[in-house]
């Protein structure tokens, strides 16, 4: 009996401290530029063009549009054009690509999809250049005010600005593109001025001066001097954008060549077309499970089921925390409203839960209808709330409401939500993911901590409060 405990103790120490030398060794040899740590993440935009062609079937159609080209600043991956059998011609077109589709209209929508990651860049304007002069004031801070005063009152103010500057002898051009961060992306124009053989971007509408944010997608340029025509967006084009936070490709690239880490999983997942989110969930689940066992065994926060908070946090990654939490509370509210009379009718568990679930699914359909009617994007996301969670939650809620009371069930709901929020913060963190990719040996330490927790028999934090009267002096 005694030797058994000793083996366990040795195992705990080994697991806890084994990763340490590896971590030290990696820190010493990796030679990573830690100042870059601030930008471990980037946003990947999944852009989808859909053409809702009005022509009848078997009528000739002609579609022309511009696709962006990859360059140093913008990476375009997983491009996929579904022409539904139309002829496609692709040609270089002013630093972009012009796509021309023609043929007979077929069944289904023509679509085109690609993933875009941009870099933000800040350019340095040579001090000898008196750009300030043309702004009547050398102070850059007043630039925005100047622009607002002079150009912002009209549409396409960047174009006016470019015209204004080109009068002063600078070579300029306009850029056609999108700001993918805006809610409903419309074609956006910004200007570029050639300074020291570099095209420097200026966007008056969004207030960027010799600077470009990572969300700007460049399609092509328009040279005003040459009287270039501005490419028109096809009227039946619909653009949908989905954002996803990812580890920055540069960092992945840099770490991939270093020994003994799990950064290669990123490329593996990308090649297999698996979402990066899945990798994060897999890598961080040991940590999250440990946190949940700490919440329960050391702090004493009970939840619906042991790992329901974890499942909730996973679904919050799709819905967002607040929308997801609101949805969860709505579902619990509905479950309790439906559950109460059924409990009074004294129904058996399974048929009772079947009715509860039916009502929850009806709620879902209602939400989707409302979301579609008022065009509320986030509501459609909510409807992806996994059924498994709802099934689980309603079962647990009903158990507690039956065996104890509704108050206890509601308190438990909020505790569950609290723990889910805490675990969501972990699941949502790219920095923590990167730490586990660089130091996967930390998983051993997590097992060690769980072994300690499994043998820890101290009072939980909530029990200190529960038994507090016992420490008060008796008489």
């Amino acid at each position, binding site marked *: 009996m005694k030797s058994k405990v000793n083996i366990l103790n040795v195992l705990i120490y080994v697991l806890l401290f084994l990763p340490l030398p590896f971590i030290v060794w990696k820190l010493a040899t990796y030679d990573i530029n830690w100042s870059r740590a601030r930008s471990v993440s980037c946003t990947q935009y999944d852009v989808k063009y859909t053409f809702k062609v009005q022509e009848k079937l078997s009528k000739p159609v002609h579609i022309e549009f511009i696709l962006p080209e990859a360059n140093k600043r913008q990476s375009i991956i997983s491009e996929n054009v579904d022409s539904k059998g139309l002829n496609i011609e692709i040609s270089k077109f002013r630093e972009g690509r012009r796509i021309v589709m023609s043929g007979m209209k077929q069944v289904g929508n023509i679509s085109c999809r690609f993933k875009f990651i941009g870099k933000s860049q800040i350019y340095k304007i040579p001090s000898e250049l008196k750009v300030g002069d043309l702004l009547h004031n050398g102070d850059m801070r007043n630039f925005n005010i100047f622009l607002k005063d002079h150009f912002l009152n009209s549409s396409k103010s960047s174009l006016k600005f470019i015209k204004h500057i080109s009068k002063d002898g600078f070579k300029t051009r306009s850029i056609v593109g999108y700001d993918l961060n805006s809610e409903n992306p419309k074609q956006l124009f910004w200007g570029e001025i050639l300074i020291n053989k570099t095209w420097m971007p200026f966007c008056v509408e969004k207030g960027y001066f010799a600077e470009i944010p990572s969300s700007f997608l460049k399609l092509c340029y328009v040279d005003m001097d040459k009287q270039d025509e501005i490419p028109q967006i096809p009227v039946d084009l619909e653009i949908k954008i989905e954002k996803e936070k990812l580890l920055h490709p540069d960092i992945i690239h840099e770490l991939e060549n270093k020994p003994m880490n799990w950064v290669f999983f990123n490329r593996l997942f990308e090649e297999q077309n698996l979402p990066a989110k899945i990798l994060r969930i897999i890598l961080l689940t040991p940590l999250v499970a440990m946190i949940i066992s700490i919440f329960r065994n050391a702090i004493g926060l009970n939840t619906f089921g042991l790992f329901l908070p974890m499942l909730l946090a996973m679904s919050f990654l799709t819905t967002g925390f607040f929308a997801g939490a609101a949805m969860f509370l709505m579902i619990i509210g509905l479950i309790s409203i439906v559950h109460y009379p059924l409990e009074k009718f*004294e129904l058996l568990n399974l048929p009772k839960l079947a009715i509860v679930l039916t009502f929850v699914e009806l709620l879902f359909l209602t939400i989707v209808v409302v979301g579609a009617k008022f065009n509320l994007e986030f509501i459609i996301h909510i409807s992806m709330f996994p059924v498994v969670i709802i099934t689980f939650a309603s079962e647990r809620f009903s158990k507690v409401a039956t065996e104890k009371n509704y108050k206890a069930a509601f308190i438990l709901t909020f505790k569950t939500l609290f723990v889910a929020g805490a675990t969501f913060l972990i699941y949502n963190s790219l920095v923590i993911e990167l730490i586990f990719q660089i130091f996967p040996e930390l998983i051993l330490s997590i097992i060690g901590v769980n072994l300690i927790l499994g043998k820890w028999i*101290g*009072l939980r934090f909530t029990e200190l409060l529960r038994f507090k009267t016992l420490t008060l002096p008796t008489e």
Partner: protein
Amino acid sequence: MKLLDRIIELQSRVVGMNERNYSLVMRHNPKKNFYLANDKTACKAILETKGIPTPKTYCVVEHMGEMIEKLKVINDLNEIVIKPAMGHGGAGILLLKRLENNEWHTPSGTLYTNEQIKMHIANILFGRFSRKLNDKAIIEYLLKPHSFFSNIYHRGVPDFRIILLNKQPVLAMLRMPTELSDGKANLHAGAIGLGVDLKTGLLQAGYCQVTDKMVSKHPDSLVHFEGVKIPDWEKTYQIALDTANSFPLNYLGIDIVFDEKFGPMVIEINGRPGMQIQNVTATGIKEVINNRIINN
């Protein structure tokens, strides 16, 4: 520092959930014997063979098919209890008294026809109260609390909970229903717990979990109970000892009701009794165990 001292002191006296699960339940109650605590029919079988008083079982319904045949027993009875064999927390327990028109009524006045009784038994068999699909319905003698208890409060069935470790009584309390608990002897429903001095059988101060307050008289009847001696406590104590000695479980919570006619009777045993008794008796379980070691 004072706070830390209090935490350390608490830790040395009180058993929490982690320690209960690890040091008391896992170490003292073998998994293979746990069914004795979970299944009331198995528990009662042992009690009956050992001659320990327990409410008489009129019949046990195990399948839907035998219900009508077995329910013939109740034709000659006027007072019965119907309970699930594997329920817990008092769920699904029905106390029934016969009215003159052959209907039944519960203490709270709800009427039950024979058909509704069959429905309730069907619910038990389908696992509505235990979430197990092989549950059984027990029909047994309806206990009437001794006048000592009904004088403190007239509603419900108060019961003793005695915790024993290695066949030695550790702590005891009396659970007394209140208006708040709606006549249930459930601490988390609002019943009050009264500490019982194991040696003398004197009632100590009471504790209400829901309001987190100590009380010395019953909140509804205002009957003062602190320091009052329980009748026949020695007998109750002996029954607890006998029960513990009859089961291959070494950490037990034994529930005993003092019946008007038959005296103390074991109604069920619990292999995983809760820790709230420490608040009720204002005594930690570890404190009792440690003192006992020192005294021996």
